[in-house]
């Protein structure tokens, strides 16, 4: 069974290898290589998760190369790492299969295989962000992830995608440069690159009061860099263009998975590198809390104001990411649990919303404004059902996955002093705002048409893969909402290991 410890490394190398061999294949084969990679990697991640669940410590560190820590490089896995790797792979696979038809339409034929190469690279980068135990490796794979994501965005035939890609690239570059200088400062203060060694050095320095200012600056730079890249308020302005112009699969992957990869790395930085005590004492948690809450409200207000379905879904991402940052800002175990569940709920819901929004706009010749989309749910029934399920989940209706994190956030808010009132108020306001824009859209797509347009009926038979996938996503969403306890128990166990074992 010791062989399972090789699986995280194999997953990363396999993705890089598949990216290379995809270049030699034609479009269809490249697509199947990507599917095969995601399924196989998913199986490997599930094995690592099962191994750690039944092993004594629930955690292992894997030496890369010939040298032990602190000289060599390492990857490590507890329970949260393979769980999120598995989640990312599942969501990527569902988004790709569900949006395969639109990829054929939206991406230039000569670029199909490059699209799948970039999918494989994104996958490699995300796996590394999940598993790495080395701060500089994390930086390199942040950059690989950014380059691959930009390329996914640029692949769309729409001219506007170039402008969206430029905006996304610039924001990403600002974020990565802040992370880089933060990492370099941290290295100059601690002299280490591996997480456990940096953690020990920071704890010692913080206890003695040495280098407090450089440490706080480094911490601030790393957190703000990752926050910019994941779209925290006020850095969420790249989101509507980015998610609105990409092909639905790419939008789903970028919003549901890539931004969550950065957030998971941020959690690793806070809990495994910096230490939760240093993070809380530095006061940065309050900034994240305030930005998270403002993001919840500002994202929702922007979503109400827009009149395009993809832009609305994109702005809703900004609001949902605000929830995650609110939990990170509270900084307790209960809030971390709520944030982790929010990552799961959002990763499962948002790709479904983007795919179904794409399916709805297909019925009216690609138009995305609400007036044109009226009655579209009757022309593409599976997209309508999936959009309804996604909307109800985002609003936080019980039985859907989105309800659980909202409940967990409310529970975690108690006992914090002034933060309690702000968090509860923000939850209430945000839920009302969510209701306004999601239910408005839902009513809209099921209401009789008011614009005379040529409409195309999309039946289950014509887009089988799309229909099956969006309905499966809706079913998974409800299943997670109904049976959340096993995931919560797994997270509780995972958080203990995440915070304490190095």
């Amino acid at each position, binding site marked *: 069974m010791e062989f399972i410890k090789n699986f995280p490394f194999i997953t990363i190398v396999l993705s890089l290898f598949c990216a290379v061999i995809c270049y030699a294949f034609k479009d269809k084969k490249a697509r199947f290589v990507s599917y095969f990679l995601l399924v196989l990697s998913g199986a490997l991640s599930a094995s690592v998760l099962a191994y750690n669940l039944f092993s004594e410590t629930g955690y292992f560190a894997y030496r890369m190369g010939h040298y032990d820590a602190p000289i060599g490089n390492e990857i490590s896995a507890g329970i949260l790492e393979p769980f999120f790797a598995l989640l990312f792979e599942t969501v990527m696979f569902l988004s790709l299969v569900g949006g395969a038809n639109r990829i054929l339409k939206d991406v230039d034929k000569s670029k199909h295989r490059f699209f799948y190469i970039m999918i494989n690279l994104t996958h490699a980068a995300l796996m590394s962000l999940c598993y790495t135990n080395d701060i*500089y490796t994390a*930086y*390199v794979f942040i*950059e690989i992830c*950014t*380059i691959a994501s*930009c*390329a996914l965005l*640029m692949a769309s035939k*729409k*001219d*506007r995608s*170039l*402008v969206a*890609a*430029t905006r996304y*690239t*610039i924001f990403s*570059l*600002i974020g990565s*440069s802040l992370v*880089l*200088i933060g990492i*370099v400062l941290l*290295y*100059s203060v601690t002299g280490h*690159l591996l997480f456990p060694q940096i953690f020990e050095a920071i704890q010692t320095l913080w206890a003695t009061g040495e280098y407090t200012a450089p440490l706080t600056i480094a911490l601030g730079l790393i957190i703000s860099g990752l926050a910019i890249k994941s779209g925290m308020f006020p850095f969420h302005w790249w989101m509507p263009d980015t998610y609105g112009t990409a092909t639905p699969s790419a939008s789903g992957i970028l919003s549901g998975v890539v931004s969550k990869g950065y957030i998971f790395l941020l959690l690793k930085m806070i809990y495994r590198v910096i230490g939760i005590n240093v993070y809380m004492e530095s006061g940065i948690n309050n900034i994240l809390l305030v930005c998270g809450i403002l993001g919840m409200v500002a994202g929702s207000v922007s979503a109400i104001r827009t009149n*395009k379905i993809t832009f609305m879904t994109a702005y809703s991402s900004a609001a949902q990411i605000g929830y995650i940052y609110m939990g990170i800002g509270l900084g307790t175990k209960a809030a971390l649990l709520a944030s982790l569940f929010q990552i799961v709920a959002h990763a499962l819901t948002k790709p479904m919303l983007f795919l179904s929004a794409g399916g709805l706009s297909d019925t009216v010749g690609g*138009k*995305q*404004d609400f007036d044109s989309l009226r009655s579209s749910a009757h022309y593409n029934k599976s997209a309508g059902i999936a959009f309804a399920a996604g909307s109800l989940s985002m609003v936080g209706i019980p039985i859907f996955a989105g309800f659980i994190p909202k409940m967990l956030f409310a529970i975690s808010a108690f006992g914090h002093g002034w933060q309690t009132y702000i968090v509860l108020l923000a939850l209430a306001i945000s839920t009302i705002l969510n209701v306004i824009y999601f239910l408005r859209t839902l009513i809209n797509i099921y209401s009789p048409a008011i614009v005379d347009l040529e409409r195309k009926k999309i039946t289950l038979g014509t887009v089988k893969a799309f229909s099956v996938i969006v309905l499966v996503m809706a079913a998974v969403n409800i299943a997670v909402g109904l049976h959340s306890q096993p995931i919560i128990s797994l997270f509780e166990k995972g958080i203990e290991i995440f915070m304490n074992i190095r």
Partner: protein
Amino acid sequence: MNFLINYEEATSMVLFAIGFTMLVFSKNIMKKILGLNIMDTGVYLFLASMGYIESKLTPIVPANGEVNVSDYINPIPAGLVLTGIVVSVSFSALMLALTVRLYKKYRTLNLDEIYEKCSTEDEYE
């Protein structure tokens, strides 16, 4: 007076600030790419200066195989700089490719003008 002793670090921070300002505030996309490179150069100077220890040797094992670790400079920052250079070259290439496509489409390198032209195109309607 610390700035005079740590002049390499001070220079690197100045370079980083110049590059970062160019990346954030410049309207011209080519200047943004230049800013990115200047900023990265600042970081590499910072890293390289951290690894250098005066009067120590290059970390190459001599022919006779006798190694005394304290005789050499720290080789890890050099490795990090090399990795970082590869990353920044890749990003510059991506940005330049994007710039070529943007220029072909909009005939300008000014991002404000590009955004303006783009928003007037009624693509979604």
